[in-house]
């Protein structure tokens, strides 16, 4: 008897008999495989496998006895099993019955470069089409509901305004305040060299009201609210809640998407004013500390130098940004497929796309304003 504790097989070359020992289970499978592969298998005849000394045989072990072992033979040999218990025989024959289909695992051939590019193009094109269909549906739905204010989802709208607006106030205030401080600091240092301290009011007022206020608020909202829209709608899509609404005759556009878009279009201009306010406040604080401009001087100059137009231009951008954020957030949410990975991917896309289009739109506005000399 072979008494090595780590030995699972003992091969007798004369009568071509393989004696198996010990635990033939998943945990020891790789060791057994190694031992089997070191045996010099014959090239003809029949192999006899003796299972008398096997203490435990699970399906992985049985797989090795039937399929795994045949891969080691250089020529196909027939196998005869002896001294296996009834249960083990059952297991072996169960697996042997499956052998015929086991080798035919359909292989997936990877696409070549050209096909990959093609696939990408088709996918992107489909996405564009889907987005057009989405906006079309949205417009249609809006026009359908516009004459019936009593059918608007006022409660959902209020709830959304609270979520997207009211709860975003602290973070936007803090962020804008900080940016106001930073801008004043950087510009103030330069202005001081020329003794042009007081012009900080013009620079700060115009840049915050026209650019930074709306942009900061929009970027914060894209990160905070756009992603939430995508994740909410995406999870509802995975749970088939969207399908359920559809079959109940309540289109999700009316119930879920329009309230979100309208709410954001209402709140983002308000948040922009809020952001403007704290941006200027931060600047004022820094101007007093760094440039010795008193509150009164600052405010009086602000009043005379900054036209209302600057505020209005900034505010005019906000609804456009809001539409971008909300439609992108909702669209990517509705694009979620029924798997966990998709929710994450679409949420990321939602934020990246929203910020991308916000900056693109902002650049477009700048070009437009300079062309028309506004």
């Amino acid at each position, binding site marked *: 008897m072979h008494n090595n504790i780590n030995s699972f097989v003992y091969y007798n070359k004369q009568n071509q008999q393989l004696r198996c020992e010990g635990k033939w*289970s*998943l*945990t020891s*499978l*790789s060791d057994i*495989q190694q031992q089997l592969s070191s045996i010099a298998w014959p090239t003809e005849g029949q192999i006899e496998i003796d299972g008398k000394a096997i203490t435990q045989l*699970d*399906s*992985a072990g049985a*797989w090795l006895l039937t*399929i*795994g072992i045949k891969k080691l033979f250089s020529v196909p040999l027939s196998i005869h099993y002896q001294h296996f218990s009834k*249960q083990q025989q*059952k*297991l072996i024959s*169960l*697996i042997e019955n*499956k052998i015929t*289909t*086991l080798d*035919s*695992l*359909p292989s*997936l051939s990877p696409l070549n470069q050209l096909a990959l590019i093609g696939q990408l193009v088709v996918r992107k094109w489909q996405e564009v089409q889907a987005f057009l269909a989405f906006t079309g549906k949205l417009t249609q739905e809006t026009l359908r509901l516009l004459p019936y204010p009593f059918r608007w989802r006022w409660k959902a709208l209020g709830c959304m305004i609270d979520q997207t607006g009211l709860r975003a106030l602290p973070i936007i205030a803090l962020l804008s305040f900080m940016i106001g401080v930073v801008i004043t600091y950087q510009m103030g240092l330069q202005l001081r060299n020329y003794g042009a301290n007081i012009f900080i009011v013009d620079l700060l007022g115009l840049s915050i009201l026209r650019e930074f206020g709306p942009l900061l608020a929009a970027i914060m909202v894209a990160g905070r609210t756009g992603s939430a829209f995508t994740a909410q709608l995406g999870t509802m899509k995975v749970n088939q809640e969207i399908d359920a609404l559809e079959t109940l005759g309540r289109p999700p556009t009316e119930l879920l998407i329009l309230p979100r878009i309208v709410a954001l279009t209402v709140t983002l201009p308000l948040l922009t004013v809020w952001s403007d306010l704290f941006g200027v406040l931060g600047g004022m604080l820094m101007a007093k500390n760094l440039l010795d401009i008193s509150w009164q001087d600052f405010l009086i100059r602000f009043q005379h130098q900054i036209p209302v137009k600057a505020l209005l231009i900034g505010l005019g951008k906000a609804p456009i940004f809001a539409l971008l954020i909300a439609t992108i957030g909702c669209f990517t949410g509705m694009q979620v*497929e*029924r*798997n*966990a*990975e*998709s929710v994450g991917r679409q949420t990321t896309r939602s934020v990246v796309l929203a910020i991308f289009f916000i900056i693109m739109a902002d650049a477009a506005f700048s070009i437009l304003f300079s062309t028309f000399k506004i």
Partner: protein
Amino acid sequence: MNKSPIIELTHVKTWVQGKWLHQDINLAIQTGEIIGIVGGSGCGKTTLLREILMLQPPTRGSIKIFNREVTTASYAELLKIQQRFGVCFQQNALFSSFTVLENVAFPLQEHARLDKETRQSLALLKILLAGLRTDTAHLYPAELSGGMQKRAALARAIALDPEIVFLDEPTAGLDPESAAGLDELILNLRDTMGLTIVLITHDVDSLWRVTDRVAFLGEGRVLCIDSMPALVCHSHPLIQAFFKGPRGKVTKGDNEWKPK
């Protein structure tokens, strides 16, 4: 039955949302048996399963698995015990971003040192054992029908050749033919691989066909644990209501399978 039970619950109590869900659960499961756990909806079957699986602790009481107390076991010990389980959840819980083959190969990849070819071959074997065809191997769970998802979940549950397999509502939502097929599969697995199977189900046909014993959960305790023929004759009103209702009666009366 002189061996010590593979799973033993003594005086298990669970406090859920202001009331006792389990008041006093005592249950012993022997190696190699197929045990059914039944009871009305909301009687705490799934919670009991989660407690046995160590996904949540019971409020009081002791749970012994493989003769080891798990309520006080260390985390490392729990992980070792959990490797010897195979679980098929009510909602299948297949990994949605993996294909069926990857789903089944995943536990093999995590817990056994095997080369890729062996892993795939073993995973494919399990997929075939669970009664799926090879061409489903590369599909994603979302592309499968409900019955195929159940089978894929079962394939993943038996991937590591576990000693105990827990099945939560395996035949729910299946057509009678698929359900009967799954019953056969469960019996077959027990006979060939010597598994202990804990089956939670409402399917009376399944209970008659596959179980050795059935534990009836009600009023926060195990009201009766016995073979099906004995259980249906039990006089407790809850058990009578469960099996003597219109559906229970029809299935029992028309039952062409011999009770075991």
